[in-house]
C-alpha cells in the first residue's frame, strides 16, 4: 500500500487526496495507464518507436557492433544529460555545461603537461576546477536570485574565453599538447576511455559508466532525502525552505554535480583523443538540455526522472547515428534530426496525455 504510494512520486499525476481505500478514481485506473502517466514511460515508448523505425529503415542497425556505436554516441551525451536533468528537476539549468566539459579537459591536459606530472595530477585538479565552476554557478544563482539563464550564460561566455585565452597563454597554441606518452595515461584511459569485448562486439566503457550513473541518480532521486529535496526546491523553493529543506545547499550541490559530469566527459575526451582544441564544446549544452527535456524533465522544474534522460540521450544518439546508418541524403541531416526529435517528443506528450486523461 505504501509502496504504490511511493512508486509514483506526486510529480506529474495529480495527487489523490483523501483516504486511499475510498478513492474510487485511483482504483479504477488500470495499471497500464498509471504506468503510462510516468514521464519516463512516454519517452521510453518514443525511444522504442525511433529504434524500431531505424531497425526497419537501416539494416546495419540490426548488428550488435552498430548498437554499441549508437550507445557510445548516446553515452557521452547521456552522462551529462543526467546531472543536467537533476538540476532541471531542481528548478535551474546550466548553459555553461558544454564548454565546461572542454574546460575540464584542457585543465587536466595542460596541468600535467606543463608540470611534467603524472596525468592523475591533472585529472584531480580538473575535478576540483569543475566542481569549483559548479559551485560558483550555484552560489551566484542562490545568492543573487538572478535567473540561472543569466548567470550561466555569463559563465558560458567566460569559460569560452578562458578556454581559448588560457590555452594560448600556456601552450602557445590553441590546442593542448599530446599527453599520450605521459605516466598514468594508460591507467586513466582504462578508466575513462577504454573498451571491452562482449561476444565479439567492442563496447565502450562510457556506456557502463552512463548506466551506473543513471542507476545511482535514480536511487538518489527516489529513495533518499536528498532526492526529495531536489523535487522540493524545483517545485516550490519557498515552501521547501519553510519545511526545512536546505535550498542553497541543494541547488549549489546540483550545479557541482553538473561540474562532476563535465569533468567525467571531459576526461573521456582527453583520454580518448589525446589532445583537445580549445574551441570545442560550444552548442553541446543545448543537446544535453534537449536530452533532459525529451526525457520528461520540465523546463519549469519540479518534475522529471533520472531514467527519462537516459532514453532521451539514447533517442538523440539513435537518430543522429541512425540517419547515417540509413544512408539518407546528408544535406537534410539536421532537418531529419529535428523532425525525428520533435516526433519523438510528440509521441511522448501524446502518451502522457492519453494516460492521464480519465
Amino acid at each position: 500500500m505504501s509502496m504504490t504510494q511511493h512508486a509514483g512520486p506526486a510529480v506529474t499525476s495529480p495527487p489523490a487526496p483523501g483516504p486511499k481505500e475510498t478513492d474510487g478514481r485511483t482504483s479504477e485506473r488500470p495499471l497500464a495507464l498509471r504506468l503510462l502517466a510516468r514521464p519516463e514511460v512516454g519517452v521510453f515508448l518514443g525511444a522504442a518507436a525511433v529504434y524500431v523505425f531505424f531497425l526497419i529503415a537501416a539494416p546495419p542497425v540490426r548488428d550488435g557492433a552498430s548498437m554499441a556505436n549508437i550507445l557510445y554516441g548516446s553515452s557521452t551525451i547521456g552522462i551529462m544529460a543526467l546531472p543536467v536533468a537533476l538540476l532541471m528537476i531542481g528548478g535551474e539549468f546550466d548553459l555553461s555545461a558544454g564548454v565546461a566539459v572542454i574546460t575540464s579537459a584542457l585543465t587536466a591536459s595542460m596541468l600535467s603537461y606543463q608540470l611534467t606530472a603524472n596525468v592523475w595530477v591533472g585529472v584531480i585538479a580538473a575535478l576540483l576546477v569543475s566542481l569549483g565552476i559548479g559551485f560558483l554557478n550555484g552560489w551566484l544563482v542562490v545568492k543573487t536570485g538572478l535567473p540561472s539563464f543569466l548567470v550561466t550564460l555569463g559563465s558560458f561566455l567566460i569559460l569560452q574565453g578562458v578556454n581559448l585565452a588560457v590555452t594560448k597563454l600556456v601552450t602557445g597554441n590553441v590546442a593542448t599538447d599530446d599527453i599520450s606518452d605521459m605516466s598514468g595515461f594508460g591507467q586513466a584511459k582504462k578508466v575513462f576511455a577504454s573498451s571491452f569485448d562482449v561476444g565479439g562486439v567492442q563496447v565502450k566503457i562510457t556506456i557502463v559508466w552512463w548506466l551506473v550513473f543513471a542507476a545511482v541518480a535514480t536511487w538518489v532521486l527516489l529513495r533518499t532525502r536528498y532526492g526529495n529535496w531536489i523535487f522540493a526546491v524545483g517545485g516550490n523553493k519557498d515552501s521547501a525552505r519553510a519545511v526545512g529543506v536546505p535550498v542553497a545547499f541543494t541547488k549549489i550541490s546540483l550545479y557541482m554535480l553538473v561540474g562532476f559530469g563535465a569533468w567525467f566527459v571531459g576526461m573521456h575526451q582527453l583520454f580518448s583523443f589525446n589532445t583537445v582544441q580549445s574551441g570545442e564544446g560550444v552548442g553541446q549544452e543545448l543537446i544535453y538540455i534537449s536530452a533532459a527535456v525529451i526525457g520528461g524533465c520540465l523546463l519549469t522544474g519540479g518534475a522529471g526522472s533520472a531514467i527519462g534522460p537516459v532514453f532521451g540521450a539514447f533517442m538523440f544518439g539513435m537518430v543522429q547515428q541512425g540517419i547515417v546508418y540509413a544512408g539518407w541524403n546528408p544535406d537534410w541531416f539536421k532537418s531529419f534530426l529535428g523532425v525525428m526529435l520533435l516526433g519523438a517528443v510528440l509521441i511522448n506528450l501524446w502518451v502522457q496525455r492519453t494516460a492521464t486523461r480519465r
Partner: protein
Amino acid sequence: MHRNHRAATLTATLLAGALCAAGCSSSSGGKKSEDDGAAASAGKATTPRMTVAMVTHASPGDTFWDLVRKGAQAAAAKDNIKLVYSSDPSAGNQANLVQNAIDQKVDGIALTAAKPDALKDVIDKAKSAGIPVVGFNSGVSDWNKLGLLEYFGQDENIAGQAFGARLNELGAKHALCVIQEQGQVALEARCAGLRKGFSGKTDTLYVNGTDMPSVKATITAKLRQDSSIDQVVTLGAPIALTAVQSLSDAGSKAKIATFDLNKELVKAVQSRTVEFAVDQQPYLQGYLAVDSLWLYKNNGNFSGGGTAPVLTGPAFITKENVDQVAKFAANGTR
C-alpha cells in the same frame, strides 16, 4: 551538520590526494621533453612603424587558424608592423570588424572572403579611404571582382581535384568526404573538387565538429553502413585523427587522407596511420598577406601582379617528405 562534516572530509581527502599526486611526476613526455626550437626569424625592418588589420572568418580555438595568426605575427614582427587581429565566423560581424579597422585608419587590411558578397561594400569603403586590402585563404574565385590587391591561398576546388587525382593513383575506389561544418563554402568546395578529380565514387558525410565523440561515432556509423568505402577524406587535421579511431571501431580497412595539418597529424603521417595530408600552408598565408602589405607600402610591389592569385597549396605531405615538415610542426608553425 552531519552532512557538512562529511563534505569537509571529502574535500580534505581530495586536496590531500591532489597534493600527494603532485609529488608523482611523469617519467615521459610533458613539457620537459618539449624541444625549445626557436621559431623562424628574419631580422627586423627599420621602416616606419605601420598598422595592419587582419580580419578572418575563423571560429576561435581552431588549430588551423592559430597557424595563420602565427604566420601573420612573424611577418609583423619582422616588418615593424603593429598587427591587429580579429575574427568572427558570421559574415555580417566580419564586415563590421573590417569597418572597425577602417575607423582605426590602419595602413592595410588583410581579410578572408569566405562570404564575398557580405564584404563587398566594406571593401569598397576601405579602398576609398585609401587603405590597400589583400585577400587570403578564402575567396579565390571572387578576389578580383572584389577589387582586392592580391590574393594568397589555395584554390579549394583545385586542391580537391588534386586530392582526387592522388587517390586515383593510390587506387581508391569509394571515398567518403567528411564535412565538419555543414554549409561552409570552402569545405563544400573541397568535396566538390574531390568529386570532380576522383574517378571513383564519392559520398559526403556531415559531422558535428565541436563534439569529437559524436564525430567518432558518426564516421563509425557511416563506415558500417557502407563497407565498400575504402578511403576516408577529412577536411581538418583533428577530424582525421578522430577518424583513425572510427576505422578501428568499425573494423574497416579503409585508408585516411586529409586536408590541413597540425603537429599531431604529422606524427600520424610518420606512423602511416594517415596516408597523406594536403597542406595549404596557413602559416605562409598569414605571413605573405601581412608581408605583402609592407612591400606594397614601402616598395609598391604586389604579388601576382594584381591579376593572378598566389597559391600556397596544395602541398602534399606524404611519408616521403613528412620528416622535413615534422620539426616545423613541432614548433607549431606548420
